[in-house]
């Protein structure tokens, strides 16, 4: 598998590292990670770089994850790239909103590396 270009968007730098570690434990050893602290920073990265996978929190200052998803679609950025939301918000309503905005998957915090593997790897293989 060639190097996977991955964008992780979370206002917590600790959580970005934990997500990266979980992805590597899930088998994505060959991976380059871009980090963003909110949706606006994530959009900046997508304007200048090509990525294969996006993982994003929902609750963030400046631009939250749902608005980030809407802007990706409106600005025609990262077309066809799978976006997985990783968040503490797990109600059915939040999941519906995320899917409607374009998310391909959803992982609730706290999570195990196995859950990341199950929900993310199939998306990367078909991307």
């Amino acid at each position: 598998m060639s190097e996977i270009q991955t964008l992780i968007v979370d206002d917590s730098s600790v959580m970005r590292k934990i997500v990266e570690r979980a992805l590597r434990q899930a088998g994505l050893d060959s991976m380059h990670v871009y980090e963003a602290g909110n949706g606006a920073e994530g959009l900046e990265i997508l304007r200048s770089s090509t990525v294969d996978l996006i993982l994003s929190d929902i609750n963030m200052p400046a631009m939250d994850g749902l608005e980030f998803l809407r802007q990706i679609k409106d600005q025609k950025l990262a077309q066809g790239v799978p976006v997985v939301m990783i968040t503490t918000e797990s109600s059915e309503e939040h999941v519906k909103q995320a899917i409607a905005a374009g998310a391909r998957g959803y992982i609730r915090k706290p999570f195990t590396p196995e859950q990341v593997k199950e929900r993310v790897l199939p998306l990367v293989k078909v991307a």
Partner: protein
Amino acid sequence: MPLSLRESLSEIADPRNLDLTVEEICQMMLGIHCRRGERPLEEEAERVTAVVGFGGLLSGACVFRSGGGAACALASHMTGMELTEVDDTVKDGIGEICNMLAGSWKGKVPELAAHCGLSVPAVITGRDYNLHVQAPEFRLEHVYEFEGNTFEVTILCDGLQ
């Protein structure tokens, strides 16, 4: 008829939900075993407090409190780094732990999960401060122990519709 959570008060205020939440996060995100403690929170000069607010049909907060040593130990388990001072990484980690505690706790009751939002975490550090909330609707306050350290998690509900 407007939606109300008041009929679910006994389920929402069930103390077992808080214990299950704490155990789940300690095991899944920190890889540690913690148990409900009987001794009070250790007195330490340096305190770390994280607060995540609840808004919607339930208003209140999830509050995490510990001494600096326990905060460093938790953040070290979370990051895989050796952290010995309450720096930005420790504060960030404790804020995230509080965020997950709040989210998982409200997720234990479906009506609450759907109709109660979370604020971003605020983390306070320092010495000689008290946290005071006037007459909450209910309050759960449990101390937990791990590896010789203690921390306290409080759920405060000051309004329930």
